[in-house]
């Protein structure tokens, strides 16, 4: 089985700073892979490289066997990779429905078809009742879900979720977990950045751990939970008392 996404030896430098350093991993079709690591580990930078905002300084990225590193974000999106943003970027002065319609236009030219699909997705993400709200006025939890809805409207095969659960209250959190599970059932592969360990452990098949831009571990949730390097990265070195 060929991997859906293959990140091969990717580095990204900002001046002399290596934000991402020689990272390689693969994501297979149908999986939920989590990308975790302490703050500043380079997770979002890696997303920006995959999504095309940054070109990798070294290394290559393949999607369905096709090299995508160096392509523009809109081309990568058309190939089937959609993303959400950690700092939500709703199209502020548009209604929730128009936000989703705008991205649904990627796969259809007809206004009525785009609207039909947008409404379907809003029902799926439980934003249907807020469809006429101006997105600026939505509470954070719903804005995060709007990000997901918008990404889904581009009919991706791979969805990159950047901290879609951060800052949610427990009710919203459970709702979002349900939605992510439903997305996976619909056949979309997910690569997710998350700090919330409860979420990570309950939904992901595999976990990739970054620290200071380098990959320090990869494995199933149990393996990661018991990996001494990971514990050290999060909690600091064990002290012999």
């Amino acid at each position, binding site marked *: 089985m060929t991997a859906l996404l293959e990140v091969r030896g990717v580095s990204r430098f900002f001046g002399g700073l290596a934000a991402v350093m020689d990272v390689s991993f693969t994501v297979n079709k149908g999986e939920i892979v989590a990308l975790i690591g302490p703050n500043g580990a380079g997770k979002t930078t890696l997303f920006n490289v995959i999504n095309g905002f940054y070109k990798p300084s070294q290394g290559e990225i393949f999607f369905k066997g096709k090299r995508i590193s160096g392509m*523009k*974000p809109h081309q990568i999106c058309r190939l089937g990779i959609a993303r959400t*943003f950690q700092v939500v970027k709703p199209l502020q002065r548009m209604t929730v429905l128009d936000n989703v319609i705008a*991205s649904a236009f*990627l796969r259809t030219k007809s206004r009525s078809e785009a609207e039909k699909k947008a409404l379907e997705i809003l029902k799926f993400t439980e934003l249907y009742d807020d469809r006429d709200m101006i997105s600026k006025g939505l509470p954070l939890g719903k804005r995060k879900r709007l990000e997901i809805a*918008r990404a889904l409207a*581009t009919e991706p095969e791979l969805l990159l979720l950047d901290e879609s659960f951060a800052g949610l209250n427990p009710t919203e959190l459970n709702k979002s977990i349900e939605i992510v599970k439903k997305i996976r059932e619909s056949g979309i592969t997910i690569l997710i950045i998350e700090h919330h360990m409860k979420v990570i452990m309950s939904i992901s098949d595999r976990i990739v751990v970054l620290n200071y831009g380098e990959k320090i571990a990869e494995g199933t949730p149990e393996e990661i939970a018991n990996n001494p390097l990971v514990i050290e990265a999060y909690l600091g070195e064990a002290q012999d008392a």
Partner: protein
Amino acid sequence: MKRYAPYIVFALMAVLPFLGLSTYVMHILILMLMWSVIGMAWNLLGGYCGQVSFGHAAFFGVGAYTAGILYFKGGVSAWWGIPLSIPILVVEALIIGFICLRLRGPFFALATLAMGEVFRVTAENLRNFTQGTLGIMLKERTWVEKTWYYYIILGLSLFTFLVVRKVIQSRLGYYFVAIREDQDAAESLGINTTLYKTIALCLSAVLTGLAGAFYTNYMGYIDPEVVFALHDISIVTIMVVMVGGVATFWGPVVGAVIMVILAEFIRSLPRLGSAHQTLFGILLILIIIFLPNGIVGDFSKLKRIFGFGRRS
């Protein structure tokens, strides 16, 4: 009702010349319509797509000079400038877009401002081609009467209105607004932002240039100081849209009516007349502070302030 509003307004406007209006009133109406065309054109790029241009005189002037040079050098009627300026404006927009559209926000605005000035200075100095500051004069105007000019610009403004509305209600419109609201988000949602910004610029440039070509035919005289003017064209264009309402269908039309009346009124004031630029500047500041969405966009706010249309 809303759908047919432009046709109704158009029909009403079409009857006006039969009222036997004076030449002066006809002139004012023609100016209003011309400014509404330019305003609507600017609105497409600046209002919907969020790319604020301070250099629309570059398009107005090139449209005007296309007509002028066709007449002066080509020896054909200056009316040919209206169809023939379209390809020229598209090429111009592609060049300006290639240079300016890689910049964002205020940097784009500054680059277009510089572009407008570059075109003015160029037109002043290419004396063999443009007659420089001597300008180009049409030896005879097509009509002495203003009626036909009025109908032509009325048709052009209805055309512009319908084009803008059609574009905004289509996929393009969604893409334009998405780019305005967040270019990075738009890009990551699969929108080719460079392509769609260029489309917006081309449409806006062509419509503005058509008004310029009309201007040559109507006024019968153009020179670089007038048609490439920063303050009299580029800035007034922005004022028309700001006063009327950014990113609204009727805003530029309302703005054009108000600005033309205001300009005529202020110019007729004794002593203050020559300070009309200053007064415009003050007005723009007041509008930005108190009615940031313009008269059409903040209409409900205006109603509240002046207390009409109150629920009793």
